[in-house]
């Protein structure tokens, strides 16, 4: 099969520019993604056993309080923004797919590793996009698949960069970027004959700067439709097609509704007690304790976030009340039953002065969707561990390092 490639702008220079963008941006997506695994904390990482394939599992800090908001917002946001660049890069090298496999076994093996590179990045994009839109059509564990896929991609990516860095440098030096930005359609010519360059191109319908503007425009469009899921106020609605561009009227986003929790309303009404070891506290008794107010973000693994003003009892005060003044960990359990209905906090997370068992938000009692009667809120803690509908807190002096 012989395909006639027609584009007069396909060539090493354009591929190199797109490659450079990805070379700069993808490491940020990779690292912020791997940080998310660390942020879940010792004993709670998903997947649990990843061998040596993880960043050092140090205690996730509580400061700055927007740390997880930033890292996870970047991971998801930048991941979306790079979709047009990845697609353009694949377009730019597609003639290679139809060239014969090299006879040299080493070259053939190098070509085979592109399966990890291309399969890896597209698998990560597809599973990531489905996950943030709550579409679990794939039917397997998102966490395990996305984490494994990430390392498969990293394997292909590192080798690809190592092999192609000289070609990218040559490609970038082959034409002046500034001159290309000044070259209109009428002056657009094919690159000199060689790799990727069409031997018999059609007349151009788009300049190189036009093609770059098209890709950048696609990225900007997606950025404009994504950033809203991390800001509060009217701008949130700019995330037109994402679940987190919308909220219930007059409310801020939740990651799980009370209805979805399956909790019987009676379990969180007048009979509810907070269990602190052998202590049992009613909500009125909690309200009577010294209250602390802090503006803290809820930031979700799906990349969205919101900052609200929470009031409640400091976790360290509750620890003292429970007779564990210097806890090294705390196991928080929800009335809810399920995989995310409990979370272990480190000593540092419990001791942070803004770490709260929140009873109120923005001056009003928590609503059922936001965790009434009480929920945990800790600076920089992934939202999924800010347990709602809290039933008990076990402060201990064993467990994860402080």
């Amino acid at each position, binding site marked *: 099969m012989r395909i006639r490639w027609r584009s007069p702008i396909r060539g090493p220079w354009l591929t190199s520019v797109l490659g450079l963008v990805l070379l700069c941006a993808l490491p940020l997506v990779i690292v912020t993604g791997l940080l998310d695994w660390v942020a879940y904390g010792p004993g709670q990482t998903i997947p649990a056993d990843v*061998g040596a394939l993880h960043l050092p599992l140090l205690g996730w800090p509580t400061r700055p309080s927007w740390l997880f908001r930033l890292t996870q917002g970047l991971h998801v946001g930048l991941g979306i923004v790079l979709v047009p660049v990845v697609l353009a890069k694949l377009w730019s090298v597609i003639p290679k797919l139809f060239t014969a496999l090299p006879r040299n076994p080493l070259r053939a093996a190098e070509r085979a590793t592109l399966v990890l590179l291309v399969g890896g990045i597209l698998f990560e994009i*597809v599973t990531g996009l489905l996950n943030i839109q709550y579409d*679990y059509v794939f039917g397997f564990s998102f966490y395990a*698949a996305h984490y494994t896929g990430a390392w*498969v991609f990293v394997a292909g990516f590192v080798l690809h960069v190592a092999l192609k860095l000289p070609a990218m440098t040559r490609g970038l030096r082959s034409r002046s970027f500034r001159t290309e930005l000044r070259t209109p359609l009428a002056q657009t010519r094919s690159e000199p004959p060689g790799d990727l360059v069409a031997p018999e191109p059609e007349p151009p319908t788009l300049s190189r700067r036009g093609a770059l503007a098209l890709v950048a425009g696609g990225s900007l469009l997606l950025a404009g439709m994504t950033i809203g899921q991390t800001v509060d106020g009217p701008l949130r609605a700019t995330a037109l097609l994402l679940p987190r561009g919308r909220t219930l009227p007059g409310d801020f986003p939740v990651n799980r509704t009370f209805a979805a929790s399956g909790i019987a309303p009676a379990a969180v009404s007048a009979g509810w007690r907070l269990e602190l070891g052998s202590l049992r506290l009613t909500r009125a008794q909690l309200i009577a304790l010294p209250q602390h107010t802090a503006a803290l973000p809820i930031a979700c693994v799906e990349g969205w976030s919101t900052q609200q003003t929470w009031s409640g009892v400091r976790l360290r005060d509750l620890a003292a009340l429970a007779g564990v003044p210097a806890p090294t960990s705390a196991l928080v359990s929800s009335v809810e039953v399920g995989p995310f209905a409990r979370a272990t906090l480190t000593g540092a997370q419990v001791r942070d002065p803004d770490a709260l068992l929140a009873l109120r938000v923005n001056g009003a009692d928590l609503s059922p969707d936001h965790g009434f009667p009480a929920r945990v809120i800790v600076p920089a803690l992934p939202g999924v561990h800010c347990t709602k509908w809290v039933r008990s807190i076990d402060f201990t002096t064993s467990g994860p390092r402080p």
Partner: protein
Amino acid sequence: MTGLRAAGVLACLALGAYAATIVVRDPSLHPSIPWMLAWFAGALLLHDLVLFPLYAAVDRMLVHLPAAPVPLVNHVRVPLLGAGLTLLVFLPGIIRQGGPVHLGATGLDQAPYLIRWLWLVLAMAGASALVWVVRVTRRSAAGG
């Protein structure tokens, strides 16, 4: 140099294989492995064998657009690409897939996404048409 390249390829394959052990370590994931591989293969082929033939074929049809004082091709191409890109990225909401989980997570249904996307496509097409009209007007004003 060849030795170095061979070592690189081996290291890459070794890391890829070691990464795959993550799903092997957890027996509860074993039934999912064939599906994960199938999705990986699907992702690998998604651009080159699905998206590329589709958009390349549509783009080829643009050469048949009628000749105009300002070529129409990019004024059709840009909004089409914008529509395709947003459809691809935001597909689950637009086709209402995953409704129950979406409802449980957000308290909201997926009803508005399709109409919002259609409005977005209309807006991109309208803006592109407007720019084309402005360019034609300016050209005829300048060139007579």
